[in-house]
């Protein structure tokens, strides 16, 4: 506090002080001999020696004078107030989605935790809003109690580097921030000042309790092993550099590669829309829309490939192999005559194209059923739709339009299936190729006939099913795929 003005007459003795921050003016008043004649105007006249009129608190001045007339003084009463400057706010990046932070789970720290579902990252679809970049604000200057301006400070812009996976939302008319949207599907990652959406989730070590199950919109690469009981579901490729240790479910809309050993299990399965490749497999149940490739060995596995199973350098012992185009392997069965079955199914119903159309019809029908749920009674009774309120009517009309659209699509798919059935079936060119040894215990089968190998046969040879004579014939080796 600093005294800035003193005044004395026969009505009052006045002392004005300013606070250290220069924002407040305090008055100390002592009544004089003729205090009952004190006037508001003479107090204001003194105040104006120090401050400016807009900052004077008129109510306080009136009260001080009223008290003074009654012979009462005051000590340290605030009589004027300045305005603090408003500092400009720095620009900032506010994330609207969770970022990937390994080891930082959403699990409670007390009670039970589910370490299989840690929720470490959030799946972000392309086009989704991921963050807002707030612009800095300029702030506004203030005024001290003596009427002098107090400068403000403008905020600093936020410096962030975005790559092509994130871009500003076009056509946005906001003054205070810009919205950032993802251009690809993946998870959000921020490292230093670099911000990006990663399309591949890379786990450099093992997949275990540190990460939990994975359900990701992009590809997944595991640098180590997938521990027992952990599952991976991905829209992109799944690549496991190490081994899969059992009871795991791997699902991909693209391909799955297990470079090491793959142990199956009662509850485990592999489903790849494209191809599945494995180094060594035991007890694995795998389905692939394309080919299944075995690099070294497969024991007691069940493979179902919509195209072919390829194991040119591998040994296949036990289990069943289902394929359409055929099979190519180095060694089938072993010296112990373990029953190993290769099923060739080249009927239209098991071809990849047919199954794809059939699956699509099934999905369309499910979609129609779900749409029916949303539309409710208005689907059957469309005359009631115009009677609805405009907002609801618009939504229902839109949904009915979509229902009809899906209905037309499913009809077209059904016609496609009919045409496929009516067309002449393609000439069967399926075969089982063995480049090493076909051991006793090997069973080759089609839906109509089968052949069990009694004595081991050395390759390279081709077994070919002949529909006309309903038998398997041994032929000179011919590669499964030309070139």
């Amino acid at each position, binding site marked *: 506090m600093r005294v800035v003005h003193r005044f004395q007459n026969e009505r009052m003795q006045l002392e004005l002080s300013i606070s250290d921050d220069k924002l407040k003016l305090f008055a100390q008043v002592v009544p004089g001999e003729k205090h009952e004649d004190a006037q508001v105007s003479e107090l204001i006249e003194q105040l104006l020696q120090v401050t400016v009129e807009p900052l004077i608190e008129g109510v306080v001045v009136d009260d001080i004078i009223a008290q003074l007339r009654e012979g009462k003084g005051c000590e340290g009463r605030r009589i004027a107030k300045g305005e603090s400057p408003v500092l400009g706010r720095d620009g900032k990046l506010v994330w609207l989605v969770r970022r990937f932070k390994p080891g930082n789970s959403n699990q409670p720290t007390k009670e039970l935790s589910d370490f299989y579902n840690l929720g470490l990252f*959030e799946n972000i679809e392309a086009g989704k809003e991921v963050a807002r970049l707030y612009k800095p604000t300029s702030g506004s200057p203030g005024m001290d109690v003596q009427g002098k301006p107090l400068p403000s400070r403008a905020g600093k812009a936020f410096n962030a580097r975005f790559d092509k996976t994130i871009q500003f939302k076009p056509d946005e008319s906001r003054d205070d921030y810009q919205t950032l949207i993802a251009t690809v599907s993946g998870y959000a990652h921020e490292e230093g000042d670099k911000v990006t959406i990663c399309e591949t989730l890379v786990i450099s070590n093992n997949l275990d309790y540190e990460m939990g199950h994975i359900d990701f919109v992009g590809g997944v690469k595991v640098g180590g092993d997938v521990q027992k009981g952990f599952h991976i579901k991905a829209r992109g490729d799944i690549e496991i550099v190490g081994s899969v240790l059992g009871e795991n479910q791997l699902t991909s809309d693209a391909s799955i590669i297990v470079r090491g050993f793959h142990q199956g299990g009662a509850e485990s399965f592999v489903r790849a829309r494209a191809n599945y490749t494995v180094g060594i497999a035991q007890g694995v149940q795998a389905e692939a829309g394309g080919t299944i490739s075995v690099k070294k060995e497969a024991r007691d596995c069940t493979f179902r490939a919509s195209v072919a199973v390829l194991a040119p350098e591998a040994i296949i012992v036990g289990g069943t192999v289902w394929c359409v185009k055929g099979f190519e392997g180095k060694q089938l069965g072993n010296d112990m005559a373990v029953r190993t079955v290769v099923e060739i199914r080249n009927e239209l119903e098991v071809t990849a194209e047919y199954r794809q159309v059939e699956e699509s019809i099934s*999905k369309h029908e499910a979609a129609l059923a*779900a749409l029916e749920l949303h539309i409710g009674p208005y689907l059957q009774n469309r005359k009631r739709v115009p009677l609805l309120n405009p907002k609801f009517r618009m939504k229902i009309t839109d949904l009915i339009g979509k229902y009809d659209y*899906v209905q037309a699509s499913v009809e077209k798919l059904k016609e496609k299936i009919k045409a496929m059935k009516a067309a002449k079936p393609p000439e069967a060119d399926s075969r089982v190729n063995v480049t090493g040894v076909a051991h006793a215990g090997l069973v080759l089968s089609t839906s109509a006939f089968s052949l069990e190998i009694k004595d081991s046969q050395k390759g390279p040879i081709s077994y070919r099913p002949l529909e006309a004579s309903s038998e398997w014939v041994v032929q000179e080796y011919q590669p499964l795929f030309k070139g």
Partner: protein
Amino acid sequence: MDQKTLLSTIHSACARGVQLIPPNILCASIGSIGLKDPFTMPMTATLQDCLDAMQKYKVGSLLVCDAEGKLKGIFTERDFVMKVMGKVSNLAAALVTDYMTKDPVREQPEASLAFALSVMSHGGFRHVPIVDHEDIPIGIVSVKDVVDYFVQKMLDGIFDSIDIDV
């Protein structure tokens, strides 16, 4: 469609593997559902100012912030009905800070939808302000926003599952 047919349709859709509510929907962050910009009022605002703003912008809740923009309270239709109507005669003379819900439960945009719903359910309120790390409001989420999001995701899920061929 009668009740029986509807139930049969539901069962049939589920049997075909239709996920009527997409998995992981509750794990989505609140920020990702399309946050609405909040309507904020200064702490010096009167009840009349708030009423005018609610009527003008057709909103049911206002966030009350200090000079730095930090969240200090929320004033909703419910506050108006329970604390103001029939009790305050001069709306222009009453400060909102005396009638607002002070220091409301707020969330950051990265919190999950499940958590936001849980907060609303346990707390018995319909609006949750969303703030950034400086406690400055960046949006507000209501139960209606969440329900709208669920229905939209359910419909999106149906169309994402199929490749239209017409």
